[in-house]
């Protein structure tokens, strides 16, 4: 990996690390304003993280290394994805790692680590949250993989750099049936994977209805801060991936400082717009009954399947 490549990876990591809580803050603020509330401000997630970081680390009695390692695994996998995905520039994509299947697998690994940690606590809520998370994950993964396949067929490669470069060269591709269907399918998968409405309600206090939050109920202090930060980063990564795949304009083709700075700015704008749009849509949504979630996700899988078919027939 070149020096430029490492620099770009570092820049992307810092941008996502610093920006993710801000994205969360913006999304909450958008939702608050649309609901007629004042909102806590864009910086509130960072204030929460600062508060949690200052607290004493605590782990429940009876938990094992699985519980202690999970936040680190979640953060590490997310950072690894951030480092290799061409969010900012296509010129510094490492030879290995930027493969879409690898990216999906890394993100799943993080989710599974957290689910195992939920089970490790031995509490009813940890197990319940883990069970729900895995149920949803099992339904989302096929959509992600099939959707990825649909995008890689026309390019002949699953390498993210190749896909992005090829789309940039032929912008008309984003309005082909395969691309549109894959965009919708992956969009739904992203919503489910990041625990947003209508699949999960990130702002609920009702422990019995939680999915993601139920798994992490036992975390406290710095560990919780790590989980929260990594979860916010996963949201950014998923939105960023979606934007990179379906609206790659603005991604730099070189590693010059000016190009990278522009790439960072465009990435921030795209992700913020997507996040704000998602938050705005959430205002009008209610949470699905848990047993209806598979129907929604099955629908997204069918769309992904259609995208693959379309990519073969309409190229």
């Amino acid at each position, binding site marked *: 990996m070149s020096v430029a490549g490492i620099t770009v990876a570092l820049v992307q990591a810092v941008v996502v690390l610093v920006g993710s809580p801000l994205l969360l803050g913006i999304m909450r603020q958008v939702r608050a304003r649309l609901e007629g509330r004042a909102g806590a401000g864009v910086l509130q997630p960072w204030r929460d993280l600062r508060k949690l970081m200052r607290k004493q680390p605590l782990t429940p009695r009876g938990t094992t290394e699985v519980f202690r390692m999970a936040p680190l695994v979640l953060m590490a996998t997310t950072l690894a994805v951030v480092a290799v995905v061409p969010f900012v520039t296509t010129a510094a994509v490492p030879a290995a790692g930027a493969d879409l299947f690898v990216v999906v697998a890394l993100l799943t690994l993080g989710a599974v680590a957290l689910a195992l940690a939920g089970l490790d606590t031995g509490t009813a809520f940890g197990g319940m949250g883990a069970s729900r998370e895995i149920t949803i994950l099992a339904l989302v993964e096929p959509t992600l993989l099939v959707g990825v396949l649909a995008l890689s067929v026309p390019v002949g490669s699953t390498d993210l750099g190749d896909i992005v470069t090829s789309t940039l060269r032929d912008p008309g591709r984003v309005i082909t049936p395969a691309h549109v269907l894959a965009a919708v399918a992956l969009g739904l998968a992203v919503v489910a994977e990041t625990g947003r409405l209508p699949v999960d309600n990130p702002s609920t206090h009702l422990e019995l209805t939680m999915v993601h939050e139920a798994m992490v109920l036992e975390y406290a202090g710095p560990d919780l801060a790590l989980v929260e930060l990594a979860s916010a980063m996963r949201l950014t990564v998923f939105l960023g991936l979606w934007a990179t795949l379906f609206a790659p304009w603005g991604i730099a083709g070189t590693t010059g400082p000016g190009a990278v700075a522009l790439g960072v700015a465009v990435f921030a704008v795209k992700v913020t717009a997507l996040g704000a749009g998602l938050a705005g849509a959430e205002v009008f*949504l209610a949470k699905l009954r848990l047993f209806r979630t598979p129907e929604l996700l099955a629908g997204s899988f069918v769309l992904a399947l259609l995208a693959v078919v379309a990519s073969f027939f309409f190229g």
Partner: protein
Amino acid sequence: MSSGTARAPVGWHRTARTVTPDQLPAQAAGLLDAGFRVALVAGHDDGDRLRAVYLFTAAAPDRRVELLVPLDPDRPRVPSIAALSFPAGRFEREMRDLFGIVPVDHPLPRRLVRHFHWPRGWYPMRDDAGDPPAFGDQDGPYPFRSVEGPGVYEIPVGPVHAGMIGPGHFRFSVVGETILNLKARLWFVHRGVEKLFQGRTPQDALELAERISGDTSVGHALAFCQAVEDARSVDVGPDAARLRALLLELERLYNHVTDIGAMCNDVGHSVLHSHAGRIREELLRVNDRVTGSRLLRGAVHPGGTVLAALPDPVRLRMIAADAAEVAALALGHSGVLDRFTGTAVLTARQAHDLGALGYVARASGLSVDARRDHPVAAVPLPRAAPAHAGGDVLARFQVRCHEIATSVEMITELVGLLDGCRSAPATGAAGRVAGSGVGIVEGWRGTVVHRVEIGADGLLRRVKIVDPSFLNWPALPVVMADTIVPDFPLVNKSFGLSYAGNDL
């Protein structure tokens, strides 16, 4: 009624019979067969003996019959009538925990009110109970029913909850997400309210009555005042009755609006929750203008009612239209409608057998409403409710929506009848000093019943309070069977039960 015992009129539409414990089951069965319901069962400590009082009520026409059962102080026992009436069985357990009056052959002879760390043989409501003794593990652990089988697990929730609700412990036995069994354990906030009433003058006790359950200030204060007036043979006159009915409807309005928003919030539709919160705030400000208290306190008092101002019906109609719009948006949303429809059905049969009250009963197709069943002269009756007999969350939501509209209609009519009169203070003319009295009021949750006994010195000797929550709580585990775990908060909210009113 074929009964050899004399029936003496003792109060408003109320007769009393003194029966022996052996006569009790036959008498109770006769009353229940004649369409009466068990409204209240209370123990009494008369110093030299214990006494159980069973109050049965029936509607159309308004009838109230008391069975007074003097008991042997050394062996206070009554034959259980739990087999005849489910609520009676719960009252009997309460009476045993507080007075040591043992219901013989009770099908579930377990503690109800007093948790197991209270020592055996200590009965807090007896006159000689003294200060609370030290806690201990005297009576073993709580006997949760354990469900066994492959894949069955338990979820313990509470008594400390994430939201600002009261303390209750829920034990779910679950396979996958489907609930097999739910046990709700309450009485974490048993404060001994009934005992606090004793020895006070009715005027002094009023502030206690207003605080039995914070959201039912008017309901409890009014039931208490009616009971005191019944005991003293005071007639408050039409203006006071209308002012009270008005306050009752104002209380119903703001609580129903709160619940409508909360139910939307529990399905993740928080924008409607925000708007319901805004409407609620407007109603609380109306309350403040009308009584000087956002929770409508300080207006009702024994013998009369005094308001600071009458509410503006035009303003209330606008607020109700606003609330109706929020409700229409909720029901027009396919996601919300899907969550509400068919969720946690309470059948009419179940509601009747459990003795459910208020909107819970009405959503299951029962016509239980103290405003009609125990009408007050000079107060118009509420418009008949349309049939929302589904018994599901949707029906409980729709009944609330309908009652918001009905309440505003009633307030409009009452303001017209009052014709500017906003004050009907107590005249001080009492028919008698001592006696027993019963007050029955349709609070926003359902029928609130108070029974007081006033001694010759004019002080309260015994006050028994029945909040509708006491009768409605057992319905919650019944409907939760075969419902899924993530629906519980929504179902719980659709019942909207009080912890404080239940635990007393």
